């Protein structure tokens, strides 16, 4: 492999690392009144880094840092998405952080370190850097969830996430060790090369490799939150403070997709039949469990968590059909919708009480028409109703599934999505066709910034639903330059 250092290739990671350290120092020396400015500075630097990543998508692939790091189309697009999702969730959560009493430098530093871990995953050309990035991301997330220690449900969520996350890391590591044992390599390109030159008659090594594939797929399924490895997700989403949920629902999913795109098609292209079958089971189970269980939920955060499981089914469909561009577009649309969805919960819980029950949405159209309209647009988009972005995302993934020859899979996915439409539409019915209870029916007045953000999300969801062409070609270009 390439033995050059070329540290400039990792400028974005270095920038985010310096930003995280600067935030910690600044929080130590600056007074509390500077925290708002610090928060905006972090958001600005995340947006700058996101723009730099998106601008680099068309560049030629660079392998740097002695073959541990690669900057290709996928990694740049994924990094841009991660940075934009992190910046977006921070923009939504500023006021709620203050309410939750976690508006401090520790929170910002941990978010930045977690983003750094995700960037490392996106650019990993070596299973060692991939694993280190994963641990960096996960450790920060555990700490972020547990930051409100006096909140017992948050501590419970953190412990659950920690135990299951450690188990998933162990499974992934076990799989990686088997890949290493069979090929003697950890570099992703080297593993693919070693497998291609494998002795056909050596069945023992093939058996070990297939076991390795099983364990790596399981580990990544845990991290993505795909059924049957989804048990942690609803509890964590519900238990974590709303601004943290907002962050962990969007950006880590993008990183998990990047991990799948790195490990499966790039390191194990010759085992495509094996991992395709596993991913089919994962995708169909996620769609079934997510969509059917969400119907029974009465808590909005929990419902969105099950909806996230269903969405991860579609992301997995994109990966297994070889549609990297479709999967990237889907995860981008998902991140946009989920930031909007949890953002609404964050904004509604302003009065000190978290309004995350479904019953709290009753009569929302009379209480605040903008919130009701935004939620309606988001729900229709998540259900896959045209002309919103969620429809285009589902369409592109299904297109790539059909062109890969799995028509029955596409039919199953569509049928299960129709089941899912029920609980999305139920929220719209609650908001528009029922009246609020007499005890809690005053008009909800949002701050101007919150109104602006909700309107922006709604406009983006409609805009990219009507004109998805540029974004689609962008992600197709990103997925093709490997």
């Amino acid at each position, binding site marked *: 492999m390439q*033995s050059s*250092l070329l540290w400039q290739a*990792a400028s974005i990671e270095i920038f985010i*690392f310096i930003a995280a350290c600067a935030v*910690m120092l600044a929080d130590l020396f600056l007074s509390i009144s500077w925290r708002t400015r610090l928060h905006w500075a972090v958001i600005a630097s995340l947006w700058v880094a996101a723009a730099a990543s998106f601008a680099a998508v068309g560049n030629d692939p660079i392998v740097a*840092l*002695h073959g*541990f*790091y690669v900057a290709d189309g996928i990694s740049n697009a994924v990094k841009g998405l991660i940075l934009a999702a992190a910046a977006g969730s921070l923009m939504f959560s500023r006021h709620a952080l203050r309410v939750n009493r976690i508006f401090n430098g*520790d*929170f910002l*530093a*941990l978010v930045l*370190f977690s983003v*750094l871990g995700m960037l*490392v995953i996106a650019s990993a050309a*070596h299973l*060692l*850097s991939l694993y*280190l*990035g994963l*641990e*960096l991301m996960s*450790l*920060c997330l*555990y*700490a972020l969830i*547990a*930051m409100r*220690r006096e909140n017992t449900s948050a501590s419970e969520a953190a412990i659950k996430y920690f135990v299951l996350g450690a188990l998933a890391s162990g499974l992934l590591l076990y799989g990686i060790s088997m890949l290493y*044992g*069979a090929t*003697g390599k950890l570099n992703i390109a080297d593993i693919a090369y070693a497998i291609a030159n494998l002795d056909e008659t*050596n*069945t*023992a*090594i093939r*058996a*070990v490799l297939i076991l390795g594939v099983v364990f790596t797929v399981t580990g990544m399924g845990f991290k993505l939150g795909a059924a049957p490895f989804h048990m942690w997700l609803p509890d964590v989403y519900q238990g974590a403070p709303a601004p943290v949920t907002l962050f962990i629902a969007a950006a880590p999913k993008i990183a998990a997709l990047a991990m799948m795109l790195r490990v499966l098609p790039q390191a194990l292209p010759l085992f495509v039949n094996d991992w395709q079958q596993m991913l089919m089971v994962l995708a169909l189970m996620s769609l079934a469990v997510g969509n059917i269980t969400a119907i029974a939920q009465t808590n909005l955060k929990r419902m969105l968590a099950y909806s996230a499981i269903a969405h991860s089914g579609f992301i997995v469909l994109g990966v297994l059909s070889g549609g990297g561009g479709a999967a990237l577009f889907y995860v981008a649309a998902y991140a946009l919708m989920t930031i909007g969805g949890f953002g609404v919960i964050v904004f509604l819980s302003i009065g000190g009480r978290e309004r995350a029950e479904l019953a709290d949405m009753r009569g929302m159209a009379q209480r605040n028409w903008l919130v009701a309209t935004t939620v309606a647009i988001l729900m229709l988009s998540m259900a896959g109703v045209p002309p919103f972005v969620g429809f285009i995302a589902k369409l592109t993934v299904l297109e790539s599934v059909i062109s890969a020859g799995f028509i029955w899979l596409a039919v199953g996915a569509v049928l299960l999505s129709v089941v899912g439409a029920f609980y999305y539409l139920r929220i719209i019915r609650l908001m528009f066709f029922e009246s609020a209870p007499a005890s809690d029916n005053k008009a909800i007045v949002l701050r101007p910034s919150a109104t602006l953000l909700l309107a922006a999300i709604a406009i983006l969801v409609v805009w990219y639903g009507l004109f998805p062409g540029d974004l689609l070609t962008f992600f197709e270009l990103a997925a093709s330059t490997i």
Partner: protein
Amino acid sequence: MFEFESIVFYFFAFLTLSAALGVILVSNPIYAALFLVLAFVASAGIWLLLYAEFLAMVLVLVYVGAVMVLFLFVLMMLDINIDTLREGFWRYLPFAVIIAVLFAAEIILVLTNPKFTSVVGDASAALTDDNTRALGSVLYTEYLYPFELASVLLLVAIVAAVALTLRRRINTRYINPATQVQTKPTDRVRLVSVTKESPLQFSSPSNDKKGKTSCPD
């Protein structure tokens, strides 16, 4: 008949196995932890026989020196009641036996299966004479990126630990060290010359603010 090396190997292997048995057989948790230390030291000896002196050093330094000391610390801090630990021993025994038999069967299956012998390579082939030097020379050059990532991981562990545990209690009284070290003897003690005839004149120390216990804001 035996070569010197195999005698040393059997010595360390016997020590490791008996110490490992001791870990699970003794009833006192402190003794069990100390047996674990012995098992680590003995397996470090086996590493040395394999010319892996760096791993041997790290095993002793990290596991014996840091992890086990911490472990013993925790054990001594906890109030462990051995009787409650032994409760339900006979109830769980059949289940434990089933698992032990399953594990043993699995290990035997793997060890006797000819398929797996072809996978295991010669581990000692990769080791050079001086593997500390070899590791050191690649750690900061070829493996710079993962090494730096590991350091960021440790930094995050520190930040997370501080963020999760540091809290300001409102009602604790503490002494501000800065004012404490700046006090002079004259602030605390006032020497008055006492004579028999004159009555005593009491007055408080001149500077009352310094060194006073104070509440945080």
